[in-house]
C-alpha cells in the first residue's frame, strides 16, 4: 500500500506534457507584471516607492538596522530607484518575450524582493504570490514554446514540440489551492459566518480604502441579500478548494472504479471551482481598486488547462 502510494507520488511528478500551458502562464503573468511596472512609472511613483527618504522616496529603510542589499551597494539617490525599476521592467520584459526566461524570472524575484525590503508597505500579498509563481517558472521549461528563445533555437516560435516536465504546472495548481484554502481557513471574522449574518462582503464594500465606487446602496434589498449569498459562496468555495486536487487525481486515474470519479471526469467538475474563481476575481476587479490582484491571479489560471485542452477551448470560444 505504502509502496503503491509512493510510486503514485513519484509518478505524478514525473509526467511530461507539451509546454503550451506553462508558456501561456509565462506570457500572462509577464504582461501583468509589465503593466504594474509601467503603472508605477506613469503615475510618477518610481522614486517615492523605490527611493529612500533623503532622495525623495518614502522608505525609511536607511534608519533601520537591516539595510537592503540594493542600498548597501548603491547610493541613496533617485537614480538608484530608477535603476531598480529598470531592472524589474527589463527582467519582466525578457520573461514575457521568452528571452532567457528562467534567468529573467530569478532576476525579477531578487529585484522584487529588494523592493519589498525597501518599502514593505507597498508590497501586497499578490506580490508575494507573483514571486512564488515566478520561482516555479524559473525551474520550468516555460520558454520552450511561444518565445523568442524557441525561435532562436529551433527556427519556430512554437519550438520543437517536444514534451517537458509537467510538475511546474502542477506546482502552480498546488500553490493556488493552498492559497485559496488558507484564505478561507483564516476568515475568522464572525461576519463570514451565519453568526454575523454573512455580512462580510457588505462591510468590505464599505471600506473607502479599497472600493472603486460608493456601495452604500447595497444596504437595500435584494442587494444586501446578494452580498450575503456571495459571502457564503466565497467561504464555501475557499474551504472546499482542495477538492480540485481530488478531481485532478480522478483525471489522472479515469479507469479506476467509482461513479463519482466517472461523473467528475465526464463533466470536468474542476471547472466549476475554476469558473467560480474567475467570476470572483472579475467581480473584485469591477468593484475594488486592488490593482493587479485579480489579473495576476487569473494569469495563473492557465495552469488548470492541460496542454491538450487548448484546442478544445479554442473551438468552444470560436463557436461562442
Amino acid at each position, binding site marked *: 500500500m505504502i509502496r503503491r502510494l509512493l510510486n503514485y507520488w513519484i509518478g505524478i511528478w514525473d509526467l511530461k506534457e507539451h509546454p503550451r500551458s506553462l508558456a501561456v502562464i509565462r506570457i500572462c503573468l509577464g504582461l501583468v507584471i509589465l503593466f504594474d511596472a509601467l503603472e508605477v512609472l506613469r503615475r510618477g511613483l518610481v522614486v517615492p516607492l523605490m527611493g529612500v527618504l533623503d532622495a525623495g522616496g518614502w522608505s525609511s529603510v536607511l534608519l533601520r538596522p537591516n539595510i537592503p542589499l540594493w542600498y548597501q551597494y548603491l547610493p541613496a539617490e533617485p537614480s538608484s530607484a530608477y535603476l531598480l525599476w529598470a531592472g524589474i521592467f527589463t527582467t519582466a520584459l525578457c520573461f514575457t518575450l521568452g528571452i532567457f526566461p528562467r534567468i529573467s524570472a530569478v532576476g525579477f524575484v531578487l529585484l522584487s524582493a529588494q523592493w519589498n525590503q525597501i518599502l514593505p508597505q507597498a508590497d501586497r500579498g499578490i506580490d508575494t504570490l507573483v*514571486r512564488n509563481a515566478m520561482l516555479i517558472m524559473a525551474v520550468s521549461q516555460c520558454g520552450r514554446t511561444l518565445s523568442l528563445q524557441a525561435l532562436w533555437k529551433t527556427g519556430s516560435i512554437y519550438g520543437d514540440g517536444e514534451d517537458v516536465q509537467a510538475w511546474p504546472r502542477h506546482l502552480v495548481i498546488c500553490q493556488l489551492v493552498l492559497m485559496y484554502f488558507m484564505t478561507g481557513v483564516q476568515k475568522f471574522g464572525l461576519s463570514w459566518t451565519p453568526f454575523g449574518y454573512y455580512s462580510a462582503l457588505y462591510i468590505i464594500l464599505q471600506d473607502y*480604502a479599497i472600493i472603486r465606487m460608493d456601495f452604500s446602496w447595497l444596504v437595500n434589498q435584494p442587494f444586501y441579500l446578494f452580498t450575503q449569498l456571495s459571502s457564503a459562496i466565497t467561504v464555501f468555495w475557499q474551504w472546499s478548494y482542495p477538492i480540485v486536487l481530488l478531481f485532478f487525481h480522478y483525471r489522472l486515474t479515469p479507469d479506476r472504479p467509482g461513479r463519482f470519479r466517472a461523473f467528475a471526469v465526464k463533466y470536468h467538475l474542476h471547472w466549476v471551482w475554476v469558473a467560480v474563481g474567475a467570476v470572483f476575481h472579475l467581480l473584485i476587479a469591477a468593484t475594488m481598486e486592488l*490593482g493587479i490582484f485579480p489579473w495576476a491571479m487569473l494569469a495563473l489560471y492557465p495552469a488548470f488547462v492541460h496542454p491538450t485542452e487548448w484546442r478544445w477551448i479554442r473551438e468552444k470560444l470560436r463557436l461562442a
Partner: protein
Amino acid sequence: MFATEPTRKAKIRAALLAFVIASQMFLALPMPHRVSESDLRKPEAKEELGRWMSLIHSIGIDWTRDEVKTGVIEWTHWITDNHKGLSKPIKPLRRYLGIGQSWALFAAPDTHPNRLQVEARIDGEWKMVFRRVDPEHRMMNTQISFRRVRGVHDGVSNKPGKIYHALCEFIARGVFEQMPQADAIRVQMYRHHKTAPHKPTDDTVVLRHTVNVRRKDVME
C-alpha cells in the same frame, strides 16, 4: 501510467518536491496576528471581541472579557513564537526571495475604515481637493489610490511615522503644482464606523492623523 519502476532521478525529484510542498504548507499554517493589549483596545477589535463574547455566553461558557483577552494574548504569543522559531532556518530564503505563504486576505473585514481627505488653503479658506471615492474631488487620485500607495496610508497606526509624512509632502507638492494659489495643504483621515444592516447604524466619524504642509516647506 505509473506501472513502470520509477527512475532514480524521478525519486529524487519527488522527494524534493515533497519537502518543498511540506515546508510551504508549514509556512501557510494560519498564524494569528501577535495580539497585544493595545491591539485589543482598537474599536474594531473591541467590536469583534464583543461578538465573540456574545457567542461564548450563548453556548453557556461563562468566561469574562478579561479572561478571553488574556487568553488571546497568551495564545497568539505562544503560537507565533513557536512558528517563528521553527521557520527560522528558511528565514534568509524568505528575505532574499521575498516568498511566503501568509494569505490572511480580508480575514476580519474592517468595520472602521479610514477615508483619506486632502484640503488646500487658498486665501485663508480650506477647499477640499481630494477625498477617497468622491468623483467630485479627485486631485492626485492617480497616485493616492494606486494599490502600492494604499498600504502607506491605510495601514497607518495610531502614531503616523515618517513614511506617512513623506506621503503627505508628496501629495502637497502635487497639489501646489496644480494650484499655484494654494499656500498650504492638510491631509486627514476620517474614521467611520460601518455596521451590517441588521445592526443599528453609527454615524460617528473620528478625525485622525492630520498633517499640515506649507508651500514654503516643500516647494522652496
